[in-house]
């Protein structure tokens, strides 16, 4: 197991280095002239050349990369072109706000998804099962930004129940903080629910037909106990893994949802930076999101190994 973890951590490092090279090269292939972008439309070629020299853009590419990467490793992400402020503090703030959104969504997705899956399996083929499948179908049949718009229309514009955009920190009061979170979290939940709910349903169906559940019933245990203690415990393993994998999907979803709700997280920061071609912000945001994604995937695999002792990593598994 230890060997496996070390090997996987090594892989994560390699991927991060590869991604950093990719990001670096891609952003240097940008059509726009960074110096012209910073100095604005009234700059002269001489001024641009001077700034390029100051920023080191006239050096060979590998030196530039080395310089950039070593600064990155020291936590210095450079200055934003657009706002002329250091990227790092802005980025960590945005990341923490995205984390609030992501973690609350994951909490809701796992509870609601597991519950829906169990309900659908227990009442298999009857109306609760059909209702759950219609509900999950609806969620994945439209992109998250569309659900976001529908929520804004219904709960924001029509009913005036919830604020339709922005973010309030906890110091601004618990009520407003939660109110701003409800719609983004609901949107993300809706699009992620199907995966977990369906998987839980199918593994619960399998578990409920198994010998150990029949034995538990034959022993006269109450049905509630049979379902929750005997069947669900065994059906949980694949669901846990899929939840961890979904965390990776969540990162993609967050980019769109944060844009819809004008939520000041890392996803929106990335989109704005891409639009304005703000290189340092772009590079840092992509790298940090990649790192989060890799760690989430690694956690998924490790959880799987811990939860399912039948899997032995390191050997051949097909």
């Amino acid at each position, binding site marked *: 197991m230890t060997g496996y973890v070390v090997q996987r951590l090594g892989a*994560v490092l390699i991927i991060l280095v590869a*991604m950093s090279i990719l990001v670096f090269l*891609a952003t240097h292939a940008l059509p726009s002239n960074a110096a012209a972008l910073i100095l604005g439309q009234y700059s002269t070629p001489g001024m641009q050349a001077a700034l390029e020299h100051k920023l080191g853009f006239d050096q060979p590419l590998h030196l530039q990369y080395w310089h950039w990467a070593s600064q990155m490793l020291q936590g210095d992400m450079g200055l934003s072109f657009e706002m002329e402020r250091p990227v790092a503090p802005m980025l960590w703030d945005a990341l923490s706000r995205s984390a609030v959104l992501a973690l609350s969504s994951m909490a809701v997705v796992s509870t609601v998804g597991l519950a829906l899956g169990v309900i659908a399996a227990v009442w298999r083929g009857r109306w609760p099962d059909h209702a759950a499948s219609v509900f999950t179908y609806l969620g994945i*049949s439209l*992109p998250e930004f569309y659900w976001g718009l*529908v929520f804004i229309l219904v709960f924001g514009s029509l009913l005036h129940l919830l604020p339709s955009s922005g973010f309030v920190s906890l110091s601004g009061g618990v009520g407003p903080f939660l109110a701003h979170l409800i719609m983004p979290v609901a949107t993300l939940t809706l699009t992620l629910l199907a995966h977990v709910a369906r998987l839980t349903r199918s593994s619960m169906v399998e578990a409920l037909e198994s010998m150990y559940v029949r034995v538990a019933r034959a022993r006269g245990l109450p049905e509630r106990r049979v379902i929750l203690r005997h069947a669900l415990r065994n059906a949980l393993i694949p669901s846990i893994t899929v939840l961890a994998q979904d965390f990776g999907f969540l990162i993609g979803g967050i980019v769109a949802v944060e844009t819809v709700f004008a939520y000041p997280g890392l996803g929106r920061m990335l989109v704005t930076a891409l639009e304005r071609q703000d290189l340092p912000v772009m590079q840092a945001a*992509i790298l940090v999101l990649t790192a989060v994604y890799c760690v989430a995937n690694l956690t998924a695999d490790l959880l799987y190994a811990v939860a399912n002792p039948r899997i032995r990593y390191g050997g051949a598994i097909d």
Partner: protein
Amino acid sequence: MTDLATIPFGRWRRLPTPLVVGGVLVITLLAVAGLAQWIAPYPYDQMHVRDRFAPPGLRYLAGTDEYGRDVFSRLLFGSQLSLALGVTATLISMGIGVPLGLIAGYRRGLTDELIMRTLDVMMAFPPIMLVLLILAVTPPSLVKTSVAIGVLAVPPIARVTRSVTLDLMSGEFIEAARARGERLRYILMRELLPNIWPVLMVEASLRVVFAVLLGAVLSFLGFGVQPPAADWGLMIANGRAFVDTAPWISLAPGLAMSLTVIGISLLGDGLRGVLDPKLDGR
């Protein structure tokens, strides 16, 4: 795994409801996309300046947008773009993924290791980051979006193909073909592929859905198809600013998209039910 032709007639006759509903939706979509030029009441970019923000009615079935363009006509034309994106992306990913999976599963050993580990590395990158990076640094176009989304789906398709190939490899028909001295190309294309395609059809339907949705997200964010194209994602994004006063501008394309996605997914689910009876009721 069953070949379509070997399914007893009786099982085709009582077609599962999802397959029928999905089939009808998909056929309608194809018809709409094919006939858009003729059935659309107006050209997709014709502006009726006097009728800006007209609500849905007899003249404009789904209302008009901020330029007075007929939303219904734009919806019809939009089906072409969505379909083109979904199908092109899926063809690209199948065109690369299926041969890779076949070879990996057939050759096994070093070839298998090389192919699958390379794909693992690809999957380790967060998909949306790669696409956004590609689309943000180069000028956007429908073809590029399709290629980017298509390449993203290569690893999962190769994995599915490989695992089904591995299952089939123990079959006597493969051994027989080898004993006859058939060439690699023949074994892959004539012996293995026909047995894999039912699974691939199901996978392909999933991939089309995925491509349509991802394409919509990309155009919503402004990195996909560019205005004034009648793209559903773009239409939803444009209507965002008027969601209070003219919600039909965003809601109508969303409805069209959901019918498309539900239709294709139901078709895929239904196909799986018919092709693989073991999965019934799961």
